């Protein structure tokens, strides 16, 4: 059967032969126009004048649009309406779109976009977290969460440490830049092809902008060339702008961002700064923690609220905290509006506790892994210690067993000793090792997002077409959903196809995000397939004169006892008998609830777990580093597709590693992003792949009734990159001969600074 098999990605053959179509590959109408944004060259200021005459005179230009051309609402914010599609008078970050040129070609539009004469009255710009804290520049009020009495616990603790750390942001660097193609249709309607994780939000955003009803807009996406959270809310500006231009001109309009523009205009992972005081005992067991998390949200709300909430929810990672006081600062800055990125704040929460546990171990002279182990939820003797700081009990905890298995498999203890020996005789190169676990909460924290719809069409010839609300960004969602439906109907994979995600086929969809794509859409498709199967089973019994009973749908056909019939033949007969052969399905995640004000409740259906051990080497002359080996053990529940899950795990690990090592966002003093292209922003390349990389799935059926007992796998593996960071810190400490701080990303310069070679 198909579920549980390592079936190839449904588009794999198209990918390798260049036949997979992305939006820019779609044949556009012959008279299609092309748009480009004009960008502000001021981080914060009033537009005193904007002369677009030179833009309009530029070759090939049809028109140039400003905020005043937007008929209803100049806003594409996903939650709060504070995200202008085109800045209207006030510029809030360097590179903010201030007008839109429409021209005959992509090149002409880009050329013209640079011709505007704009005068600004510069206003003071707050660019980073320290400046925002100093000015108390909050995007939303600070949030506090407390469990127990942290102050008292700190006062009573045998040891106390104060600490701080910084963690950089991250550019998504999807290979396909943001793009939308808007096609005017009859009766005041628009069909928009958009590379987006959230077609429904694009639909509503465009309708909101034009003052139209949702049923006038349809949004379609067959596949994205990568997304990683960067095409959840951030695709809206591009979709809206293309739609605006199509509405204005009455012609098809394509808006495809150039890489540099994309990197300047679109939001990134929130960078964070932390300060804490932690109390602990001689074994490193946490007694109390008071911590402040501050994040750079940028100029608008976007998804910063739930991102910062998720950071709070993940502060515990795998560890029991008896007394905790968290303060979360959501800084408003005059920079691009930071957004969803794989993990959605969770990684930034986990980083803090991993960092301070590492601090504690170094302070006590213990192995950091021992300190981590001493703090796990529900340890023997403390079985009742399962309550998180948000009021949800951790009931599916496998972290201790999983970590034990990985530590044994990768020979952690012996290698730590060998590394100490190596370092003792190697003055220039130093090795380091770390083993870090992850526990990640699965579900959208916005409870209402945890719903999905699907439509399964069985055609009269027995072939099957599925549409669901989820989008394909490379993760293999469509493949998994096809496996689920194929298994339910007893069909080989080639009889089941996925169509593009389209708001006119399945409405009111949620973003494909929060790792939940298969959990939600797989269940919805299963629901639809089951309805069809049930009708077919009844018809089968009727047709073969059987009493209603168990009918199996297998690769060998539909059967009950000795009676069998080909699926196609049964379907053909059912059609003639006027049996409904298609159906819709729906799913809403059970059990979850929480209070958005107090952040208390059960925000997550279940947790996914994993752990990674990484060994690195650093060069103390240059600060350069290399990962020598990584071992990962990951809990994908009962995997629906092990190969695709391993792909997510490896890809997530590398993306997490890149975030914490070579990927550095540098803003100039005037607010320009200096690292706005792959020439200066360095994601991992092929030789960064560890020469030894062992990835295994941890056999662990989900205790909750998830789709086929699997677990979501999109985001949790990103945290495996933490093992690399803490291994680098381990090596830096070995080089310095003492505990040293290391900032993230651990660039060569950061490593030299850590070991004291630099001021």
């Amino acid at each position, binding site marked *: 059967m198909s579920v549980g098999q390592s079936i190839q990605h449904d588009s794999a053959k*198209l990918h*390798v032969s260049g036949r997979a179509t992305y939006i820019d590959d779609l044949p556009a109408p012959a008279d299609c126009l092309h748009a480009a944004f004009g960008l502000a060259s001021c981080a914060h200021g009033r537009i005193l004048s904007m002369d677009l005459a030179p833009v309009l005179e530029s070759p090939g230009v049809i028109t140039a649009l400003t905020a005043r051309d937007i008929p209803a609402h100049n806003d594409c914010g996903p939650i709060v309406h504070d995200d202008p599609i085109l800045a209207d008078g006030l510029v809030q970050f360097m590179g903010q779109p201030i007008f839109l040129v429409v021209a005959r070609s992509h*090149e002409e539009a880009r050329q013209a976009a640079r011709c505007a004469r704009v005068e600004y009255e510069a206003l003071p710009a707050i660019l980073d977290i320290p400046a925002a804290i100093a000015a108390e520049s909050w995007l939303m009020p600070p949030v506090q969460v407390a469990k127990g009495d942290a102050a008292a616990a700190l006062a009573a603790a045998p040891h106390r440490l104060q600490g701080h750390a910084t963690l950089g942001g991250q550019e998504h660097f*999807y290979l396909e830049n943001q793009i939308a193609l808007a096609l005017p249709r009859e009766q005041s309607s628009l069909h928009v092809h958009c590379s987006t994780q959230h077609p429904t939000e694009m639909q509503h955003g465009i309708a909101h902008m034009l003052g139209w009803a949702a049923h006038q807009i349809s949004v379609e996406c067959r596949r994205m060339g990568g997304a*990683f959270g960067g095409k959840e809310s951030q695709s809206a500006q591009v979709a809206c702008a293309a739609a605006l231009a199509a509405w204005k001109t009455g012609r098809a309009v394509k808006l495809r961002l150039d890489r540099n523009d994309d990197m300047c205009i679109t939001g990134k992972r929130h960078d964070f700064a932390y300060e804490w005081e932690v109390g602990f005992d001689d074994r490193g067991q946490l007694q109390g923690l008071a911590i402040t998390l501050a994040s750079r949200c940028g100029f608008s709300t976007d998804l910063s609220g739930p991102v910062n909430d998720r950071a709070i929810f993940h502060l515990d990672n795998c560890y029991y905290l008896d007394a905790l006081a968290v303060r979360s600062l959501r800084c408003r800055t005059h920079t691009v509006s930071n957004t969803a990125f794989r993990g959605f704040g969770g990684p930034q929460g986990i980083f803090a506790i991993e960092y301070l546990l590492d601090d504690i171990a170094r302070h006590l002279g213990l192995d950091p892994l021992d300190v981590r182990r001493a703090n796990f939820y529900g340890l023997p003797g403390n079985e009742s210690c399962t309550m998180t700081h948000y009021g949800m009990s951790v009931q599916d905890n496998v972290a201790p067993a999983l970590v034990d298995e990985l530590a044994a498999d990768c020979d952690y203890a012996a290698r730590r000793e060998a590394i100490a020996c190596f370092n003792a005789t190697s003055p220039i190169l130093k090795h380091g090792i770390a083993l870090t676990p992850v526990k990640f909460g699965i579900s959208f924290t916005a409870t209402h997002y945890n719903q999905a719809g699907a439509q399964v069409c069985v055609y009269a010839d027995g072939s099957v077409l599925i549409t669901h609300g989820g989008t394909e960004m*490379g993760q293999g969602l469509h493949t998994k959903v096809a496996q689920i439906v194929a298994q339910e109907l007893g069909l080989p994979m080639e009889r089941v196809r996925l169509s593009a995600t389209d708001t006119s086929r399945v409405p009111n969809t949620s973003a494909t995000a929060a790792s939940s794509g298969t959990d939600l859409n797989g269940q919805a498709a299963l629901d639809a397939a089951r309805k069809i199967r049930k009708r077919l089973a009844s018809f089968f019994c009727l047709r073969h004169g059987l009493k209603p009973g168990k009918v199996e749908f297998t690769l060998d056909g539909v059967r009950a006892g000795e009676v069998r019939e080909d699926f196609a033949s049964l379907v053909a007969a059912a059609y003639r008998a006027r049996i409904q052969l298609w159906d819709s399905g729906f799913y809403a995640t059970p059990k979850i609830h929480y209070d958005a004000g107090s952040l208390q409740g059960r925000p997550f259906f279940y947790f996914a777990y994993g752990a990674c051990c990484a060994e690195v080497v650093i060069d103390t002359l*240059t600060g350069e580093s290399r990962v*020598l080996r990584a071992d990962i053990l990951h809990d994908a529940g009962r995997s629906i597709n092990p190969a695709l899950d391993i792909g997510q795990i490896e890809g997530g690990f590398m993306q997490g590693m890149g975030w914490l090592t070579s990927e*550095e966002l540098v803003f100039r003093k005037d607010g320009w992003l200096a690292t706005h292209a792959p020439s200066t922003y360095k994601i991992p390349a092929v030789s960064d*792949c560890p020469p030894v990389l062992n990835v295994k799935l941890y056999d662990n059926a989900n205790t909750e009734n998830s789709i086929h007992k699997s677990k979501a796998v999109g985001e949790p593996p990103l945290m495996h990159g933490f093992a690399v960071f803490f291994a680098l810190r381990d090596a830096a400490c070995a080089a310095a001969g003492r505990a040293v701080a290391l900032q993230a990303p651990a660039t060569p310069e950061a490593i030299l600074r850590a070991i004291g070679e630099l001021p």
Partner: protein
Amino acid sequence: MESKNMSQRPIQFWFRGRLTEVRDVSPQRTVLQWLREDIHATGSKEGCGEGDCGACTVVIGSRDDSARGGVRLEAVNSCIQLLPTLDGKALFTVEDLARADQLHPLQQAMVETHASQCGFCTPGFVMSLWADYESRDAAPTRDEIAGCLSGNLCRCTGYRPIIDAAQQAWQQPACKMDRQPLRATLDTLAAMPALDYQSHGQRFIAPRSIAELARHCEAMPQARLLAGSTDIGLWVTKQLRQLGDIIYLGALEELKAIVRQDDCTEIGAGASLSSAFSALTQDEPHWQELAQRFASLPVRNAGTLGGNVANGSPIGDSMPGLIALGTQIVLQKGEQLRSMALEDFYLAYQKTALAPGEFVRALRIPRAVPGRLFRSWKVSKRQDQDISAVCAGFALTLGDAGRITSARLAFGGMAATPRRASAAEAALLGQPFELRSVEAAMAALDTDFQPLDDMRASAAYRLMVARNLLRRLWLEHSNNAPLRIAEVSA
């Protein structure tokens, strides 16, 4: 006005199994624009438009008697190659590999190892691997694969399955291209008159001899000289500049010559970085490390050593090593040749000694002699395809008594031009090669350089690393402990 043997003919190249002619496109239209927008061949993708991500990778075929079937196949970034540079060559894209539904072994292996996720980078990976597959007879090693894919970024997979696919493809029966018809066509094209293409008010001339080049340069001193377009391509795609008239050096076989003389290797300005580093490494194996980390393979295939040097960027990676070795740069104007020490060629930030109408003819690099210690190292945030924070070239000659009889230390990323560290050199000259003198030289670097802070590194880091690279030079000479992160394993 111009010589009559340059005809107004279309751009002609081998494409999709036959000779293709292109007229009426702008001379600065990129190969990728032509593919995707003009003929709607959308398999090749645009990821960055600056030759840094590899989603647009295509393979260029050119005549080369030393290659199999007389055709050399090389991966390049189509987003920064200008279409007329294809004249006389062959262009292969991802659409060329599969026959109907029969995938090429590389594609099949990519499918089987789950080597694509979003698939957007995949065509570029396939083409880089295909150029490599065609050039070898046995499965590549992991290091060879990494070298081959140094110009391709994937954000989804983490690369492991792609590396596996590159090896697994060799378990299937070989599937090599028949190059005979291609070579015959390339020969026909080579017999055509040199390209002198005009469209959209721009002229693109591709002379075939140095004499012709010299004449054009004198007649059109304002014309832009174009070689690999790994930098000028970005003027088009990122700065949206009009290049004006273009004199293309890529059709000039004479300018690509690499001649080994007794005392020096002379590398024609048009030799690709790949060929140039291959020649340099043969004579001096310590070029190898820099050669591997210089940009990426597609950039080294397209770009030229002459271009890197003439461009004069303070962060060009070839110059520190070349200056350390005492390289002479040979310039030509009309029939006049002159040469100078490479370090003297650089006058100020992006300002060179090149006169109007003059061009770089060749580089003369002194050959290895006993007693010469040479290293060239770059330091950057990433190992593959990055721009140096600091790049260093060191050449010391050790005399009989272990004294340093000549010291040439050159750095990139430390000043407005690639420059020698004269104070540090003075601190070493005549001294025994030992820690004390090295430390004196390290300290002297503070007077040699006042580097800048930028997004790659701070000034303090650059100075520290420059010093530490000198220390590494000493340690490599005196010490057995491991010094290179590439050389250790878990």
